[in-house]
């Protein structure tokens, strides 16, 4: 009797094990004939991300791929580690973490930009913070996504310019811009970087103001890139996929710049902001004009150039991000974008 029970248990656990294995391993219901890209994207998609996210979701299928399997990852540090650990093929990665990983010897390649100028601003609790110098006060906490990431670097530049010691500013890590908004509203932190289209909702909730706008401080501030593994890119099929990712991205950039309606549609579909689905094109026009025309965040040529990375290095160095000079030739693969531009014409 006992043995039977044990056998039953054994069979049960075997079935369970196989079930779990199958559930994790295979992709039921996917069209097997088409290539499925697995990608990690950041936790929140805001206006600035929309053309690139639309490119993955709609542009790639238009080029003959299956819809990609996208997972949201909040921490930018973790995002880069995901690509190194091969948890995903494509990552919407932070350039700062990527440079650090490359210096440490990780086999990574950047194939293009997710956008070419940041829409991120620092919003502060105006009761406690009136100017940059107030950030070093006792009881003022600044949240960034991950220490040493591009948001941290973006703040450090203006601080140094105004003679404020960045080391005296209390920095904590909160992944995900939506979480940072909540933390600011709950007065757990007093300064957070958020995207420009998240600000109206915050400013309406109390005495908050925008302390830092990158387009007033920097000529151009690139921040997020499409990241893949170096070994992965050596495979010809993957290389073809990479070119198509860039083709889709740049095509989406171009269309966004020309058509407010296309941007509006994508925004309503892919933005993670509350109430995005109900927003009209006219409500979105200001942010679209700012990002498309003033900030030129979605350049028609992808604007993926070595020089931009070189220009940013001083800002990243100021947050202690690098132990030595990064080898940009090893990290950047501009040929993918060149090929994509050639094919797009």
């Amino acid at each position, binding site marked *: 009797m006992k043995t039977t029970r044990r056998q039953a248990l054994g069979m049960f656990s075997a079935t369970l094990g196989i079930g779990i294995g199958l559930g994790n391993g295979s992709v039921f219901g996917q069209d097997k004939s088409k290539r499925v890209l697995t990608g990690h994207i950041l936790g929140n998609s805001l206006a600035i991300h929309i053309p690139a996210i639309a490119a993955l979701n709609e542009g790639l299928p238009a080029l003959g791929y299956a819809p990609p399997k996208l997972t949201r990852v909040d921490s930018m540090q973790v995002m880069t580690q995901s690509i190194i650990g091969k948890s995903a093929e494509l990552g919407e990665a932070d350039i700062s973490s990527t440079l650090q990983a490359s*210096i440490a010897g990780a086999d990574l390649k950047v194939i293009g930009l997710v956008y070419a100028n940041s829409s991120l601003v620092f919003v502060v609790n105006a009761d406690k913070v009136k100017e940059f110098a107030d950030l070093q006060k006792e009881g003022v906490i600044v949240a960034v996504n*991950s220490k040493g990431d591009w948001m941290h670097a973006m703040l450090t530049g203006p601080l140094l310019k105004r003679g404020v010691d960045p080391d005296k500013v209390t920095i904590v890590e909160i992944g995900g811009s939506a979480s940072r908004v909540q933390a600011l509203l709950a007065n757990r932190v007093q300064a957070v970087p958020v995207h420009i289209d998240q600000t109206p909702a915050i400013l309406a909730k109390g005495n908050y103001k925008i302390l830092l706008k990158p387009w007033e401080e920097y000529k151009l501030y690139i921040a997020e890139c499409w990241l893949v593994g170096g070994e992965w890119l050596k495979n010809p099929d993957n290389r073809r996929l990479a070119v198509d990712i860039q083709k889709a991205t740049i095509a989406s950039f171009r269309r966004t710049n020309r058509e407010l309606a296309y941007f509006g549609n994508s925004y309503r579909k892919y933005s993670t902001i509350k109430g995005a689905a109900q927003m009209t094109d006219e409500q979105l026009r200001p942010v679209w004009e700012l990002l498309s025309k003033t900030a030129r965040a979605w350049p028609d040529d992808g604007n993926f150039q070595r020089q931009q990375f070189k220009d940013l290095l001083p800002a990243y160095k100021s947050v202690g991000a690098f132990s030595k000079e990064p080898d940009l030739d090893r990290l950047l693969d501009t040929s993918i974008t060149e090929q994509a531009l050639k094919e797009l014409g």
Partner: protein
Amino acid sequence: MSTVRSSMRRYWMSTSPSDLAASGSRGLRSRLGAVLLNAERLTQVASIVAGLLIWELVATQYSAFILPPPSAVLRRLFDPAFDLKLLKALYGALQHMLAGFGLAVAVAVPLGILMGRHPRINAMLDPLVSALYAIPSVAFVPFLVIWFGLFFESRVALVFIMAFPDMLIVITAGARDIKRNLFAVGRSFGASPLQIALKVTLPAMLPFLMTAFRVGIARAINGMITAELFLAAVNLGAMMKDSARTFDSAGVLTVVVVVCLLGLTAQALIAALEARLLHWHHR
């Protein structure tokens, strides 16, 4: 008094506080002790050395940040600049660890004895303790941020939350097992209540209190590093995050090794204390 002692010795030889969390490491530790006494240390040392050698050899096949070799950790530990940073971090880390552990002891000991000696109080509080135990402590972090902020107070609170339930369970079980007739023996020798408390109750409780401390200190060290990683990153947690940020796996691993050594040291200290206080109590 010697009669009381011997009756207690007999009692503790026949029973030991049985507890879910403690039973595992107890058995292993006493076994470890026996092995050491039998001078079978050699196999163990050989095992460690062989393990590290294999690891070192395997690590040569991978890049340094995928699998750092043990030699890289050793090199880091012998680097004076690193050690200075490490000592500072340890000093900071021990502060909230000890504060949280102290608080947990201060609450768990009286409450555990109360619950162990009074079945009704035990029946009232037991479901709540079980519920608290069932929730992973780290899930309380968002609450701690709301209540205590992101810094020292919050870290102390997390250490407390992690060490407290485990200790309470051991102490309650131990206090329940103290035999009533122990008190009767004391009284029949004409001892005052204070004398009974000092000479009978306390010595009878020491073995399971020591077990509770050993379980508790391991959890407190766990809480210490968890707090530094999950609240505002400071001390050892900041060192780990900084190393992880620059993809310096050897640096991360070195801190892991330090935390492990800290745990082993704390266990050894309590074992030494136990041996001193409980020399009459044979395992």
